[in-house]
C-alpha cells in the first residue's frame, strides 16, 4: 500500500478514528455527511493537524506517528491539497500561484515559471497566466488550484470537495476535466465529497465516513447493493431497514414485520427499492405478501417522479408517478396502504 493511515484525532465534539489505505494509482472518494470528519481527516493527512494516536505512512515513510515521536510538518510532506474554495493567493497571478510550490522549494524563478506555464497549458488556461484569481471564473480557479497542487508532483493528492464551490452549469464540465487529470497523475489521489455523483464519476473506491468512523468501504457497486447505514441508503436512494430475521420474516424494532421469503437468521438488513412500493387509498387485496398501513409524511416531486415518505411501523419511501399521485390525491397526513412483494425485498446479514 502506498498510503497506510490509522488516524485518531479529537477535535471539538468530533472524535475521528479512521483506517485508510490506498494503492499507487488509485482514486478513492471519502464520502460522508457534513460534520462526519472528512475535512479533519484530510488536515491530518496533510499535516495541518497532528494525530492523537495512530500513524500516517506514505510510500513506507512515516509522516506522523505520535507513539514514535515522529511528525513531519506539512511543508516537508509530498502531499498537496486542492481546497474547497481553491484558496488561490489573491495577490499573485495564476502563473505565480502555480509556481508558488516550486519557488517555495527553492527552484529558480525562470524555471519555476516555465514549469508553471506548462501546467497552465495542461489545464487549458495558458492564456489566463497573467490573470489574478479575482478575474477567474469558479471553474478556472478550480483548474488553477489543481495545477498549483500538481506542479509540486505530490505522492498524495487531496481534493477537498473539489466541485462544491461550482455552479451546476460548470460542474459537469469540470468533473470531466478533473477525471482526465486525475487519471494522468501518479500517486494516490483522495477526494472528499458529500455528493455520490462526484464519487461515481471520479473514484475507483469509496470510503464512507459517518460520525468520525468508517461505516463502509468498497467499490461503488458494492456499496449501492448492500448499504450498511441509513446515510448510505439515503445516499444511493433506497430504503434500508434493520431488524431481526427468522423464518423468512424480518422483525423491526418498531414492531413492523416484513415478509422476505429469504431464510436469513439473526440481525439483518433489508433493502427495498422505492419504486417497488405501491400505494393504495383502501386496503388492497392481491398477491403482495407485505401490506402495511402508513401515513403520508411528506411529498417531494422531482421531475417525472414523486417520492412519498411514509410514517408507520415500516417507515418507507415510495416512488410513484405524478399521475399516480393525482389519482390518489395524497396530502401529508393522509392514511394510505402500501404493499411490497416479498421478492422485491433483499435481505443480508448485518
Amino acid at each position, binding site marked *: 500500500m502506498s498510503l497506510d493511515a490509522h488516524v485518531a484525532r479529537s477535535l471539538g465534539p468530533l472524535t475521528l478514528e479512521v483506517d485508510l489505505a490506498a494503492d499507487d494509482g488509485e482514486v478513492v472518494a471519502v464520502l460522508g455527511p457534513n460534520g462526519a470528519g472528512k475535512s479533519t481527516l484530510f*488536515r491530518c493527512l*496533510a*499535516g*495541518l493537524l497532528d494525530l492523537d494516536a495512530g500513524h500516517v505512512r506514505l510510500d513506507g515513510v512515516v509522516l506522523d506517528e505520535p507513539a514514535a515521536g515522529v511528525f513531519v*510538518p*506539512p*511543508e*516537508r*510532506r509530498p*502531499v*498537496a*491539497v486542492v*481546497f474547497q474554495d481553491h*484558496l488561490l*493567493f*489573491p*495577490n499573485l497571478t495564476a502563473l505565480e500561484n502555480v509556481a*508558488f*510550490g516550486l519557488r*517555495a*522549494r527553492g527552484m529558480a524563478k525562470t524555471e519555476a515559471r516555465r514549469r508553471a506555464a506548462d501546467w497552465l497549458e495542461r489545464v487549458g488556461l495558458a492564456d489566463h497566466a497573467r490573470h489574478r484569481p*479575482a478575474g477567474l471564473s469558479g471553474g478556472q480557479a478550480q483548474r488553477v488550484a489543481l495545477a*498549483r*497542487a500538481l506542479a*509540486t508532483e505530490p505522492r498524495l493528492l487531496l481534493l477537498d470537495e473539489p466541485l462544491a464551490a461550482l455552479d451546476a452549469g460548470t460542474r459537469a464540465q469540470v468533473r470531466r476535466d478533473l477525471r482526465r487529470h486525475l487519471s494522468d497523475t501518479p500517486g494516490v489521489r483522495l477526494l472528499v465529497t458529500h455528493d455520490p455523483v462526484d464519487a461515481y464519476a471520479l473514484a475507483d473506491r469509496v470510503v464512507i465516513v459517518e460520525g468520525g468512523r468508517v461505516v463502509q468501504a468498497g467499490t461503488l457497486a458494492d456499496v449501492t447493493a448492500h448499504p450498511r447505514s441509513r446515510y448510505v441508503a439515503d445516499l444511493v436512494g433506497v430504503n434500508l431497514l434493520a431488524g431481526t430475521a427468522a423464518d423468512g420474516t424480518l422483525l423491526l424494532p418498531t414492531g413492523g414485520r416484513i415478509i422476505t421469503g429469504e431464510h436469513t437468521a439473526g440481525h439483518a438488513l433489508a433493502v427495498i427499492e422505492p419504486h417497488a412500493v405501491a400505494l393504495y387509498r383502501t386496503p388492497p387485496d392481491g398477491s403482495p405478501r407485505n401490506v402495511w398501513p402508513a401515513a403520508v409524511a411528506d411529498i417531494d416531486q422531482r421531475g417525472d417522479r414523486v417520492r412519498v415518505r411514509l410514517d408507520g411501523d415500516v417507515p418507507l419511501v415510495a416512488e410513484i408517478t405524478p399521475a399516480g399521485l393525482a389519482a390518489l390525491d395524497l396530502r401529508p397526513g393522509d392514511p394510505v396502504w402500501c404493499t411490497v412483494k416479498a421478492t422485491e425485498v433483499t435481505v443480508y446479514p448485518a
Partner: protein
Amino acid sequence: MGRSRRTQRPPLPVLALAGLAAAFFALPFLGLLRQVPWSHVGSMLTSDGSVRALRLSLTCSLWATGVAVVLGVPLAWVLARVPFRGRGAVRALCTLSMVLPPVVAGVALLAALGRRGLVGRYLDEWFGLTLPFSTVGVVVAQAFVATPFLVLTVESAFRQQDLRYEDAARSLGGLRWYVFRRVTVPAIRPGLIAGAVLAWARALGEFGATITFAGNFPGRTQTMPLAIYLANETNPDEAVVLSVVLVVVSFGVLVALRERYLGGAAGSTT
C-alpha cells in the same frame, strides 16, 4: 447602483451634528489660510531655516515610519497569533506611548537612552553612541510614539486574516518565513498601508517627545513642529506659513493614499 437618494435621506439630527463636526475640523484651516501673509510667502519658504526644518521633518518621519514597519509588523504578528501569558500586559506596554503625554515619552526615553540612562550609558561607554540631542534621537522619539498606531492597525488586520491561505501555502512546501513574506504580509497590505500612514502622520506632527529627548537645534533636531512653535513666539507670520506647508503636505499624502490604497472610493476593491 444601489438605492436612490430619496430612500437614503439621513436623519436630520445626524446631518446637523455632522455638519457641525465638518465645520469644526475645517474652520481652523480656513482661519490659517486667511492669515497667510501672501507677499512674504516666497521669501519665508525659501529661507534657510524653513527649508532645513521641512527637510529634517520629512527625512526623520520617513525613517521613523520605516522603523515602525520593520519592528511593528513582527510585534503585531506575535500579539495577534502567538498566545502567551501576559499578552494583554505586553500589548498595553507596547502601545502606552500612544496614550501618554508625549513629553512623558520624552522623559522616559531620556531615562532609558540618555547618557546616564538604563541602556544609554552602555551605548555611550562601549560604542561612543549618544542618541539624545541628535538627529537619530529625533527618529527614535518619533518612532517611539508613532509605532503603536501601526501595531494596533496591523494586529487587527492579522486577526481578521483567513488562516487557511497559510495552510495552503504550507501544504505547497512553503517554510514559515517564506509563507510570512509571500502570503501573510501581502494579504494584510491595506491594513499595513493604513497603519504606516497613521504612524507617519503621527511622526510628522511629533513635538513633545522630540523636544524633550532630542532638543531644538536648527538643522539637527529642529523639525517643523518645533520650528513653528518657536516662530509663533517671535514671528507669527512665519509660523502661519510653515503651518500651511505642513497642512498641505499632510493633506496631499492622505488624499493620495486614500484614493490609491485605502479603498476610499466606493467599489474600488479589485
